């Protein structure tokens, strides 16, 4: 299977295929740069960011292509928190080797901050721990203080 992920025009792909690396597709419009920053993709690698591309499923979408860089386990969780419908394609020799939909895990260990400023996990240097109450809409609850909050209040650990 050759790499065909991306937005097409009548003439073909807007952004050119990559030989090896990762394509992160189906990102909500306006989220690509944020995700690229969080995953540290902007440091050194060749990165192609597409914004507000046409999407048959979602109307509009963002997309990231990064060369010679592969997404790991915890990074899937980080993407899922910002873009719950994202698809991650691992590309080798211009072909999709692996295609995965991200999903918010049941437990987030030390990935994101509790939204309660008075929580011990924001006051002392301890690993944060959040449980997923619901995925759509995203609702999390803190292991320590029991504070329940919505996805839009979620901040990833820096």
């Amino acid at each position, binding site marked *: 299977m050759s790499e065909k992920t991306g937005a097409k025009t009548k003439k073909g792909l807007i952004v050119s295929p990559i030989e090896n690396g990762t394509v992160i597709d189906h990102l909500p419009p306006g989220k690509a740069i944020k995700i690229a920053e969080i995953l540290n993709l902007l440091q050194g690698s060749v990165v192609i960011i597409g914004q507000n591309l046409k999407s048959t499923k979602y109307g509009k979408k963002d997309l990231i292509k990064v060369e010679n860089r592969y997404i790991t386990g915890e990074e899937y969780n980080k993407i899922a928190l910002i873009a719950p419908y994202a698809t991650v394609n691992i590309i080798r020799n211009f072909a999709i080797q692996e295609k995965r939909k991200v999903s918010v895990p049941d437990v987030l260990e030390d990935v994101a901050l*509790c939204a*309660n400023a*008075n*929580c*011990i*996990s924001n*006051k*002392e*240097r*301890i690993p944060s721990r959040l449980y997923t109450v619901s995925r759509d809409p995203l609702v999390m609850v*803190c*292991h*320590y*203080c*029991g*504070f*329940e*909050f919505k996805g839009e209040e979620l901040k990833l650990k820096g």
Partner: protein
Amino acid sequence: MEFVNRDVVSIKDFTRPELEHIFEKAEDIENKGYDKSLLKGKRVGLLFYEPSTRTRMSFDTAAQALGADTVWFAGVEGTSVMKGETLKDTIETVANYVDLIVMRHPFDGSARWAADVTTKRTLRGLKKVPIVSGGDGKNEHPTQTMLDLYSILKTQGRIDGLEVAMVGDLKYGRTVHSLSYALSMFDSKIKYVAPDQLQVPDHVTSFLKRKGIGFTKHSKIEDVIETVDIIYMTRIQKERFPDENEYNKVKGIYRMDKKLLSRAKPTMRLMHPLPRVDEISLDADEDTRAYYFQQAGNGMLVRAALLALIMAGDTMKEGST
């Protein structure tokens, strides 16, 4: 039902049968007295990072009445916390000296973290030192809730089917949050009386909705006083307000006095976790409906029941006092 070495962090960690078992134990102590030999040779550490009168003294007297020794600090002045010691390091240290830690701390979730720290000690072959929360920030105060429920049970003969009004600072008041969670295990109706800016937070009401518990919101005590079985007054807590101007807008908004109290059912009981400032006037103290000081007295019984169950299991003998 296992109580030995158990942490007491959130009221939500307890089932209704477990709570009822604690109440039976408290009633047992009330009827038979304290078994002074039960916790002989055991030591309880009381770590109070924030001010307290009732919680600290009732835990202290309850532990001693059961024969345990107590060591404590009240306020961080004079401790290594002033040098920047983390909660983890204090707990790791004190866990070497005592068999159980009672802790009050200003940060939400501190009790759960302390419990995690002493649980992880067992991976190093060290004994588990249970953590009993005496209040964590604005989050929960589970043993207060246990004594509140015990007081409701004692005065009304049941908890199911009652109407309970909570009045005052429902936003920052941790006793209100814990009591709401606990009442969700019983078939009670809750009436929240507060100004908009101090109404009960969404995370509490969404929990109640998930449990299918009926609740209503009100702004005046007069709207609920004639029908409810319990009024749970709370202090507007100046220390929890991020802005003093916001506090000044709502201080003194509710005041229960003898005249207002006379409109309640004769069987209604007025409760308060204390301390009070001006939300209950002195003339209400003499009304038979006023129960807050007996409620505080119940604290020693319930805390003794908990200490007995956690530190000695179900082995209590008939006491001598």
